[in-house]
Structure formats: structure tokens, C-alpha cells
């Protein structure tokens, strides 16, 4: 609290980002009403006309006037895009043509009824998704919404009016939107309703029953007003935050709601969202996976709850723990949660109530500094709760039959054995059968087997026989014990099996993830990554998969049909899952999942499921893990590419720098000599003139040699050195080179030893001459005058070696490995070298398939040896 005015940096950043996205994104303005008929569309159209008067480009994407004349009149003169007819089950439905609006790209689009559900076959199932895409494209949108269609308010409205609300819009859509409340007093609205201005006759009756009652309208109006007020509050808070105005709000809240497959969970999620909204804080939805297996129905419900939470703006966190409380608190602590929201224990039986209560008490005790909210599930939902015992699922029937069959068989065996053994042994045999069944079957069938066998034992084997009556106390106790043991065994074993199954699934998941990680770690090229990722996804999910990566242009590279490509492209551009089993284009036959790392979409994974049901939670979790990992690997590869490029660039920069520093000196020195000698030339006695001319000649020779070297080096660097290999005579090479260098080698006695009858050697005479010239000049430059230089050629072991040896100081140990590097100059080298001569020798010789080596000679001096393969000279 030393700097009370300093805004929380994260919040500030989020606010700035929001401002930025809003600048590029279109702005959404929602005309919010408490019910139909308050005049939202009218108000919206009026506002749109005003915008047009202000010279903005306004287009009507979709407006439903319900035949109201005043409203109709307002659309006149506003451009509208034609609707797109969609034929669904023989009925033609007209929907907004999203692509047409996108193509027309106005500044402002008017799109009525945000909560509308699109006809199947449209790109998005819901109109608000169309609107989001328009906003994404930078188009401002005016739209209308009734308060009951807002996700977080739908429950409340349902409770008040009793009407079921099917079409809802997630609250997150309204995030950052401007809200204009279109308000009308309930009396006026009812008056309009009665005048038939709101609904046509047949719908009016239904509406009247649910909504258009004075009490309901007042409540709805209150909800709408409160919502609008809350929005204003939030805007103000954000405004204050960005401008460092100290305010009364509490920052740092973070809510967590416990999600379960229970039907109540949905309400708790909505409730938490409302709470988070009013606190202006973030919230997470936590799910603790236990070893108890979920039924398919529960699985579906859980998936729905988690995606609902995501849709409402929660971060979803899951963990695996058999102790739900421990799991919840673990998530809460790692996520810095300040308040946990759980449902009030509910249940028709006292047992479940007691269990829930105990859990709650434990949560409160263990939560420490975290506050615990206990929400109340709505009673209306209570009826939807499934009965305590519901009939076995279709797939379980064979198990019950097996159980009954086994019990019957064991009973027969026991009947045969009964004359010889005691009734207690019979009981143990039954018990054994129950245990055996528990290993194979589910909980229900085991209970049935336990009960059935207990009753049969009692009826057939415990005296008095053929009655359910037990005479002796001992038998009664034994029967009771049998019953308890059989049930407990059955329960325990099935639980262990469930846990095993869970463990196995978890292990399978871990193994799949591990294998993917392992295989991808080895992949070093884009193609390998593609192949590995695709084969792993196909193997694990038993689906067809392909990986689509973008070209430099941002277009995905693929062999898909145009239609599929456009879906993939959409997923890529919007970074959202698209296609089958998603909200966008669910009619597609494959799922398109963006591969994201922070802020970057690196590609799209196309998964064509073979199963007809949506992926299970298990599959989703694993797939998400896969996506994340593949994206990371793609990112790594991208970085590696970038790094390679950067290194090459740095290398070439280093080369350029060395070139400049070396060359500027080397170019200027002879130029300076020429310029000064020439300027001194006139008016001098002839002998001085001659001396100056000699200087000029030497300087220009040096300059010429430098330029030659530079050109040679550049050719080598750019890969333009293509040797013209020809069968050549070594004598020719030696002679030409020495003749050309006569003057340069004048200060050194040169001895040549070329054995007679050397075969012709395949070489590029010009390149070899240059290489040898450089070696000889190097020898001349680095050795004292009058020290001998030797040129030797020998043929041995299929190779021709040409050696240029001197008797100079030789090369120091540290210089030896570097002499063939560009711009390397051995310490103590005389002035006037560029460090290019020897690298050129190396480049030229290697271009001809040879190699060059350097060594110090015994007795002093250095020896450079060029080696060329001898080959098989043709006969003449």
C-alpha cells in the first residue's frame, strides 16, 4: 500500500489490449429491452438512420419488422443485403447472408435479434456467432436483445415467468459492447400489446400467458435496468483503472466453481458467472475427476457443463483426485482463488444429504483463507433430478442375465452337493460365485447376484427348508453376515475395477502423450513433424487426420477440396475450432482445430472422426494436450528456422564487416600510392619520374590482384565457381604460373621438381593456376628475401600432390588450423594481405574434388600441398 494509486499491471494490460482490439474490431451496440414490443428494432433503426445522416456507410444485414408499419417505414432508404434462402426439411428459411455482408463490408451493419438460432446448414448455429464474425472483420454492428435471452439471466427469467427459454446468448458476447436500454413502462407495453402492435393474434395468447403480465413485466424491467446499470458500472471501473483513479473496488478476487455432472452444476456455473460479473473478477470452473466411472449420460452432461463454463468466460481446470475436496482445494490454491462456490447439498434421501453436508463441512474446515460460497440450487430443477435407481442401461442387460445364470448354475451344483456338505459351506460357495462375478461384472448385476444367492441359500439350504424363515439365531446371524459380506465384496471389487479402469485410461492417455512427445522430439524437419503428428493422432483417436500449415502468404497448404479448405482457413484465421462437433459449421464432415501458441496460430489439425458421437471428455482432454504439444513443436521448428536464417544473416554480416574493414584498407593503400605518385610526377628529373612510375605500377598491380581475389572469392561464395575439368599437363601448369610470377618471385630462388612421365590430370587449368599463384605469392610475402621456394609435384596412391614449400619462419601452432579461413591473418603477418588468398586456394581446389593441407617442414618453413585425384587418363 505504499503506492495506492498504482494500477494492477495485469489489469492495466488487459484494459489496454481491450482498447486495442476494440479499435481494430468492430464496435457492438446492443439495444436491450425487457421484452418483445418495447421498440428495440425501432430504436435501432432510428439510430442507424442517424448514423447514415452522419455519412457513415450503413447496411441492413437482417431486420425483422414483424409487419409493423412504423418500423417498416424506417427501413426505407437504407441499403440492405438480400437474405440467403436455406432449404431445411422442405421449408425455405431466409437467413442473413453473412458472406454477403462481409463482402460488402460496410462501416455499420444492422442485425436484428441477436439471440436468433440459424437454420441448420448455416455457417454458425447462432446469430450471435455471425455477429462476432462481423465484429472480427472490423464491422460495427447494431443489434437487439431481450433480457431473457442473456445466458446469465435466463434462469431468473425462467423462474419468474415459468416459460422455457431456448435461445440464449453468452454474456461474453456483450463484453465491451455498448448497451442502450430501450425502456417502456409495463403499462404502456401492455397497452401496445393489447392494440396488437406486438404479436400477431395466435402467438399473442402464448406470450400473454408467460410474459405480458404486469407483475412479470415489472420484474423483467428491473432485470434489464439492473443489467444496464451493471454494464455502466463496469465501464466506469475500467475507465478509472486505465486512468489511475483510485476507486472503491476490490481487486484480486478470483472465483472458483466446482463443476460436476450433477444437473445442479449448471445453475451454480451461471450463478458464479453473475457473482464474478458483479465483483468484476475472473473465475474458473474446476472439475475433479475421481475413479468412479461416469455413465454416458453423466459424461455428456459434464462435457456440456464445462463448455458452458468456457462459453461464459471461465477458465476450465481439471485435476484427478479420488478426494474431491482435496482436488478442489488443490486447484484453488494453485490458481490463487479467493472464493469457492459450491452447491448446497441437496437430495431427496437423507443419506446423500448427510454425505453432502459432511463434505461441505470438511471443505469449509480445510479451505483456510479461501471463502466458501454455498449456492442454493433452484427447486424447479429438483424434478429433473434422476431417480435414485434408474433402470439399467441397454448395454447392462446381458450382465444381469449372466449374473442370474451363474447364480442358477451354482444353486444347481449346491443342490447336488447339499447331501454331503454343511449349509455354511453352501453359503461360502455362493459367496465365491458372487466374488467371481464381481471381477467380471458391474456393480448392479453383482448386487442382484448377491441378493438372489442370499435368498436362494436361505430358501433352499437353511433350515427350515423351502421357507424364508430362519429358525436358529446362528443361521440368522450367518445369513445377515453373508448378505453384508456379499454386498461389500461386490461393491469393493467393482470399485477397484473402476479405479483400475480409470488408471488404465489415465495411463493410456499418459502413454499416448509420452509417445507423441518422444516421436516429435526426434522429428527435425517439417515433413517429419507432419507425419509423426498425423500418425499419432490417427492411431490414438482412431480417426483420419491431416496437418495443414500456412504458406508464407498465410494461405493453408493443402490438397483438400475448396469447401473443406475454406473451413480450415476459417479455423486458422479465427483461431477457433471449426467443423463437426463444434459451434461453427457443424455440418462439415471433419473437425478443424487450430494449433495455437500464445497469440500465434501455426496451423490447423483436421480430424475426421469415425465415431458418430462427439468426442468424450477423455478424448477432448487428450486431444487438447496433443494440440498444445504439436503447436509447441511447430513453434519450435519455426524458431529454429528463424534462428538459422538469423545465423546466416549474422554470418553474412560478419563477412561484410570483415570485407569492409579489410578491403577499405587494402583498396586505399595502393590508391593513395598511385594518387600521390601521379601528383608528384610533373616537373621532376627523369630518374625521380621513373621511380614514381615504378611505384604506380606496383600499386596498380597490387590493386589488380586484390580485385581478382575479391572477384574469385565472390564467385566461390555465390557458388558460381564451376570448374571446367580437363586432362592437363602438370608441366604446363607449373610453367605458366612461374612465368607469370617472374617479377613477383624475383627475390626468391625457385626450384621446380616435376618427375618426367607424370600422367595427365583432370583439373581446371585456370583455377589451378590461380590457386598456385596464390600459394607462391603467399610464400613470397611471408618469407625473408633470398630464402628458397620449392615447387614439387608427385604422383602417389592415385593422387597428384603439388607442394609449394618455403624456408620461412613457418606457421605458429595457433595459426595452423585457421590459415584457410576467410580474412584470417596470422599474427605478425606483413602488411598488404587480405586474408583471402588461401581461402581461395581451398575453395578452388575443393571445387575440383581435391583438398589442400598445410604443415610446417622439418628444418623450418611451411609447405602447402594441393592434392587432386589422378583418375584414368584416356589413351591417345
Amino acid at each position: 500500500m505504499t503506492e495506492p494509486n498504482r494500477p494492477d499491471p495485469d489489469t492495466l494490460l488487459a484494459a489496454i489490449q481491450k482498447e486495442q482490439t476494440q479499435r481494430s474490431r468492430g464496435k457492438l451496440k446492443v439495444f436491450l429491452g425487457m421484452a418483445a414490443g418495447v421498440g428495440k428494432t425501432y430504436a435501432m433503426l432510428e439510430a442507424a438512420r442517424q448514423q447514415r445522416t452522419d455519412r457513415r456507410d450503413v447496411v441492413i444485414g437482417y431486420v425483422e419488422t414483424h409487419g409493423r408499419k412504423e418500423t417498416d417505414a424506417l427501413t426505407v432508404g437504407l441499403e440492405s443485403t438480400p437474405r440467403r434462402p436455406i432449404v431445411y426439411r422442405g421449408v425455405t428459411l431466409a437467413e442473413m447472408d453473412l458472406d454477403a455482408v462481409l463482402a460488402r463490408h460496410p462501416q455499420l451493419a444492422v442485425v436484428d435479434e441477436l439471440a436468433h438460432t440459424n437454420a441448420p446448414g448455416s455457417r454458425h448455429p447462432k446469430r450471435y456467432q455471425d455477429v462476432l464474425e462481423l465484429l472480427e472483420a472490423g464491422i460495427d454492428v447494431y443489434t437487439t436483445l431481450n433480457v431473457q435471452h442473456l445466458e446469465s439471466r435466463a434462469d431468473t427469467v425462467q423462474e419468474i415467468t415459468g416459460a422455457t427459454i431456448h435461445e440464449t446468448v453468452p454474456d461474453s458476447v456483450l463484453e465491451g459492447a455498448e448497451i442502450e436500454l430501450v425502456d417502456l413502462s409495463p403499462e404502456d407495453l401492455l397497452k401496445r400489446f393489447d392494440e396488437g402492435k406486438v404479436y400477431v393474434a395466435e402467438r399473442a395468447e402464448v406470450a400473454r400467458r408467460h410474459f405480458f403480465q404486469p407483475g412479470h413485466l415489472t420484474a423483467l424491467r428491473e432485470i434489464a435496468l439492473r443489467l444496464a446499470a451493471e454494464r455502466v458500472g463496469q465501464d466506469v471501473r475500467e475507465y478509472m483503472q486505465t486512468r489511475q483513479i483510485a476507486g472503491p473496488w476490490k481487486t484480486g478476487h478470483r472465483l472458483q466453481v466446482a463443476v460436476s455432472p450433477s444437473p445442479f452444476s449448471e445453475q451454480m456455473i451461471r450463478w458464479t458467472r453473475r457473482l464474478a460479473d458483479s465483483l468484476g473478477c475472473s473465475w474458473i470452473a474446476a472439475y475433479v475427476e475421481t475413479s468412479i466411472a461416469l455413465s454416458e449420460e453423466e459424461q455428456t452432461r459434464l462435457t456440456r457443463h464445462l463448455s458452458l463454463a468456457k462459453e461464459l468466460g471461465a477458465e476450465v481446470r481439471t485435476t484427478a483426485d479420488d478426494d474431491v475436496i482435496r482436488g478442489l482445494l488443490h486447484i484453488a490454491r494453485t490458481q490463487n482463488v479467493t472464493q469457492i462456490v459450491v452447491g448446497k447439498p441437496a437430495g431427496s434421501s437423507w443419506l446423500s444429504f448427510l454425505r453432502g453436508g459432511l463434505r461441505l463441512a470438511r471443505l469449509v474446515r480445510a479451505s483456510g483463507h479461501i471463502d466458501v460460497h454455498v449456492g442454493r440450487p433452484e427447486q424447479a430443477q429438483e424434478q429433473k433430478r434422476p431417480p435414485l435407481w434408474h433402470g439399467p442401461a441397454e448395454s447392462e442387460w446381458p450382465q444381469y442375465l449372466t449374473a442370474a445364470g451363474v447364480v442358477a448354475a451354482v444353486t444347481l451344483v449346491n443342490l447336488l452337493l447339499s447331501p454331503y456338505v454343511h449349509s455354511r459351506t453352501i453359503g461360502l460357495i455362493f459367496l465365491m460365485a458372487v466374488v467371481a462375478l464381481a471381477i467380471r461384472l458391474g456393480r448392479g448385476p453383482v448386487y442382484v447376484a448377491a441378493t438372489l444367492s442370499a435368498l436362494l441359500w436361505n430358501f433352499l439350504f437353511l433350515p427350515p427348508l423351502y421357507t424364508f424363515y430362519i429358525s436358529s439365531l446362528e443361521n440368522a446371524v450367518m445369513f445377515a453376515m453373508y448378505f453384508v459380506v456379499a454386498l461389500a465384496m461386490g461393491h469393493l471389487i467393482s470399485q477397484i475395477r473402476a479405479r483400475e479402469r480409470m488408471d488404465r485410461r489415465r495411463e493410456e492417455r499418459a502413454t499416448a502423450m509420452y509417445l507423441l512427445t518422444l516421436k516429435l522430439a526426434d522429428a527435425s524437419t517439417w515433413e517429419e513433424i507432419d507425419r509423426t503428428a498425423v500418425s499419432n493422432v490417427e492411431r490414438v483417436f482412431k480417426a483420419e487426420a491431416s496437418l495443414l500449415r500456412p504458406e508464407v502468404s498465410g494461405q493453408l497448404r493443402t490438397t483438400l477440396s475448396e469447401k473443406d479448405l475454406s473451413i480450415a482457413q476459417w479455423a486458422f484465421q479465427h483461431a477457433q475450432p471449426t467443423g463437426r462437433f463444434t459451434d461453427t459449421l457443424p455440418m462439415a464432415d471433419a473437425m478443424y482445430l487450430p494449433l495455437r501458441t500464445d497469440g500465434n496460430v501455426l496451423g490447423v489439425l483436421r480430424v475426421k472422426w469415425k465415431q458418430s458421437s462427439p468426442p468424450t471428455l477423455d478424448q477432448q482432454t487428450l486431444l487438447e494436450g496433443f494440440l498444445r504439444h504439436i503447436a509447441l513443436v511447430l513453434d519450435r521448428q519455426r524458431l529454429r528456422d528463424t534462428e538459422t536464417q538469423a545465423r546466416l544473416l549474422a554470418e553474412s554480416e560478419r563477412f561484410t564487416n570483415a570485407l569492409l574493414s579489410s578491403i577499405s584498407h587494402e583498396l586505399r593503400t595502393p590508391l593513395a600510392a598511385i594518387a600521390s605518385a601521379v601528383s608528384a610526377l610533373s616537373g621532376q628529373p627523369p630518374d625521380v619520374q621513373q621511380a614514381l612510375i615504378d611505384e604506380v605500377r606496383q600499386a596498380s598491380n597490387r590493386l589488380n590482384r586484390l580485385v581478382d581475389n575479391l572477384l574469385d572469392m565472390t564467385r566461390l561464395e555465390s557458388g558460381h565457381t564451376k570448374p571446367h575439368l580437363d586432362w592437363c599437363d602438370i608441366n604446363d601448369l607449373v610453367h605458366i604460373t612461374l612465368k607469370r610470377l617472374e617479377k613477383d618471385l624475383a627475390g626468391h630462388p625457385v626450384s621446380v621438381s616435376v618427375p618426367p612421365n607424370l600422367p595427365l590430370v583432370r583439373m581446371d587449368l585456370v583455377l589451378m593456376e590461380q590457386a598456385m599463384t596464390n600459394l607462391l605469392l603467399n610464400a613470397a610475402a611471408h618469407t625473408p628475401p633470398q630464402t628458397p621456394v620449392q615447387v614439387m609435384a608427385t604422383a602417389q596412391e592415385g593422387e597428384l600432390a603439388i607442394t609449394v614449400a618455403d624456408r620461412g619462419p613457418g606457421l605458429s601452432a595457433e595459426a595452423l588450423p585457421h590459415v584457410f579461413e576467410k580474412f584470417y591473418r596470422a599474427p605478425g603477418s606483413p602488411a598488404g594481405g587480405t586474408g583471402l588468398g588461401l581461402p581461395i586456394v581451398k575453395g578452388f581446389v575443393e571445387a575440383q574434388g581435391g583438398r589442400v593441407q598445410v604443415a610446417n617442414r622439418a628444418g623450418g618453413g611451411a609447405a602447402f600441398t594441393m592434392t587432386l585425384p589422378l583418375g584414368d587418363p584416356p589413351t591417345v
Partner: protein
Amino acid sequence: MSDTTAYKPVALVIDDEVQIRRLLRITLEANGYRVLEAANGQGGLTQAATCRPDVVLLDLGLPDLDGVTVLKRLREWSHVPVIVLSVRDRDEDKTAALDSGADDYVTKPFSTAELLARLRVAQRHAQPVADTVVFRTGDMEVDLSSRRVTVKGQEVRLTATEYSLLRLLVRHAGKVLTHQHLLREVWGPDYVGQTHYLRVYMARLREKLEAAPSQPEVLITEPGVGYRLVVKD
């Protein structure tokens, strides 16, 4: 060749660089030439047609036409000796120019003495070679009519191929003959590219004709291009 001392041979310089043209004018005029200049290929061809120069100095990098193109057009109607003066030093460029009819190829930068020597040689074999029945250079004498070759008065026996190679070089004495040219003329068109024939036969000729075969003075290798028979007075 000159009947009167007043006659000055005319040299046409075709080069787009003013400085090179100026330099050549100074040196050539100082050495008894009259100099004409052209800054591009088209102008050069016109000058060559109207003024009939005795020798042409041609740059390969011209702004309008490629030097080799100029050379080919010129050769359509003229046998004037042409010396190519170029900064291009790759064997391909040299070979292309020589095969297109250039008499010699001098790489920039060049020494004036060298250039003047090449000019003299080029002008000389503008004369019909067949007239020279007995050719002499240094210690060697070649009698083209009787096919006799002597070194220091001693007759040297040559095989038929060796002789036809030598005769070709003699007839173009001083001029660089490309590998392709030599192979085609001596061995026939099928042998173009088989340079090892040349290497072997040239080594044999040197063995028989040169005083120090490993340091030839007469039969000179032009690396990457071909051979030249040097005329020593």
C-alpha cells in the same frame, strides 16, 4: 607493309568508357597510329564500314550490342584484325570471342607494351599466310612447301598429325587458337572436346622443338583457351 613513312595505320577503338578511349588514343597516337573512336557497337560498325581501319580494338561490354555480336557482324564482310579488350576474364568469354573471329584477346587492365606487341602481331597476320613459304621463329624453321621442319639446322621428324598441328599454328602464328579450333582442324569435328589429344601432341611437339620442353618459348599454353605460336624476330 608501309610504302611511305607518311602512312599511319588506322586503329578503331570501340569502347563505351571515355577514359579508356582517351588513354588508348594517347598511347596509340604516340606509337604512330591514327585513332578513330566509337562509343557503342552500332557506331563502331558504321565507322568500320566507312573508314576501313587497319585494326579494331573492341570492348565486349557495350551499351547497345554485345561485343561478340559486333564481332560476328563485322566478320560477315571484313577480315580486319580485331583485338578484344575486355574486363571479362572467364575462359568462356575468351573462347567465344576468339571463335567468333577475334584475332586476340587482351584482358583489362593491360600493359601498353603488351597491347602494342599484340597489335603488331595481329596486323601482321592480316597478310595472307600462305605467302610465307618458309616460316622462322627463334631456332625453328618450317618450310611449308616441302614440309620440312628444322631446329638449329637439324631436321626434326614429325608424324603427320604433329605436322598438321604445327602447320596450323604456324599459319596463324602469333594468334591464339582455341582448343575447339585446333581439334576440329587437325582431328576433325568429332574430336571437339577431346582436349587430351592436344595436351599429348603439344607435349610431343615441345619435346621435339623446344630447347627446354618444360619451359616452352614457342608453343605457349593459353590457360583455359588454347595455344599460341609465338613469333620471335
